[in-house]
């Protein structure tokens, strides 16, 4: 047991959202899901969910309509690449800025 007079500062962290900062700010492109072709959304069944399974940051929810937590999504594009029905497209984040051209 350490001596109580010693603080023993170390770098130790439990995993959880925000532990490495708001990593969503790293993103250049964000994934957008087309629910009309997404398998669980279209069938109303818990099927596929490959985006949930393969997201390296665990920001995709395992729901009938999968949701992406944009606070932490780094925009890596793995979900878009892996989606078997190409329901996910990567859209430049700049398009979502206030005042961006809506075209």
């Amino acid at each position, binding site marked *: *047991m*350490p*001596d109580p*007079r*010693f*603080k*023993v*500062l*170390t*770098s*130790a*962290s*439990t*995993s*959880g*959202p*925000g*532990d*490495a*900062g708001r990593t969503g700010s790293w993103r250049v492109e964000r994934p957008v899901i087309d629910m009309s072709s997404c398998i669980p959304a279209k069938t109303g069944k818990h099927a596929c969910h490959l985006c949930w399974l393969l997201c390296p940051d665990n920001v995709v929810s395992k729901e009938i309509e999968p949701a992406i937590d944009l606070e932490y999504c780094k925009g890596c594009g793995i979900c878009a690449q892996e989606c078997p029905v190409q329901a996910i497209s990567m859209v430049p984040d700049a398009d979502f800025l206030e005042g961006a051209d809506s075209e």
Partner: protein
Amino acid sequence: MSNPIIESGNVAAAMAVQLARAEVIAAYPITPQTPVTEKLSELIAAGKMDAEYVAVESEHSAMAVCIGAASAGVRAFTATSSNGLLYMSEQLHWAAGARLPIVMCVVNRAIGAPWSVWNDHQDAISQRDTGWIQIFAKDHQEIVDMTLKAFRLAELVHIPVMVNYDGYYLSHTYMPFEPPDAEHVDAFLPAYTYKHALTPERPESLNTVTLPDARLDVDGIKRGGYMDIRHNLHEEMGKSIEVWEEIDQEFQALFGRGGHPVIDPYRCDDADVVIVAMGSMANQFRVVVDRLRQNDGLKVGILALQMYRPFPSAIIAEALQSARHVMVYEKGLSYGNQGALYGDIKSALYPYPARPRLHNFIAGLGGRAIPTESLYQTMKTACEQDLQTPSAQADAPQWIGLQL
């Protein structure tokens, strides 16, 4: 109290590690350390020690295994020498920054090139800025006692400790010493626990990329950035001197030995000239001091430095306040500058009113013999000149025993 036995310094170290109930030993053999690891592997194979012996392929891996073991809350030990110590250098910084209480014996040996298996202190000196606590033993009894106390210190302050003893002079010579009895050792050294011990029940990331700035963790608690963590290591290394003294007192109460954990002065009370040295050379100087006092009427003393990092600046400076001359003899240096210990002592004295004249001697590199007669003669000559040498000249190290 147990009976004295006669054994080598390496076996003394292994016995201490056995008594300390180390649970993981990971080591790679290197002369003159090899017999420590051989003895430990024998003890484990014979069922006399309940530990895992990991036969690694390098010293870098040896320290990595110790880091893993200590991170899982297990008491870990390794030993090395010379180039082996340098090979684990990166991991030494890691163990200190991660605040893991690993204990390592370094059987001091010269560093190649050219290859030398013989003794000097350059291996330990070259690793002085890793954040490890470095202590130096002078004889076999100190190897045993310091190694046991090192585990206690490491686990109280959460800083790894390097126990240094001279290759051959101590590692391979046989000397009588008292192995402490196991029951008292168990009372002195409680089981190791680690609050961040890795367990699947409570997963944590240890020492991942740590940002320059402090941050809020997932629980909203402010956690230090790299600089805060390193500042804490520095501060707490300094505070470890006091803890080391307290541990020595506890040890003395249980085993009846100790009393000089940081510096060990011999005939220094009335000394005009104080010699400072580390390791076995400091014991050799006791004979020289006796002769200089008896034959030449010179008031000389020897101050053995037991703890090199953290450097006990105030304790040393105060011990040298009444000396007129201080002679620093050492087996390691900062190439292109001067003896490493000499530089440290000079800087320790700077804030103090009395600044004795300092003299630096480099001796015994790569096992070059240091005959007691030559120490006696250099001291006698230096004292007879009454050290009139101009300061700048006296500041340059004098190499003793050169043959070319």
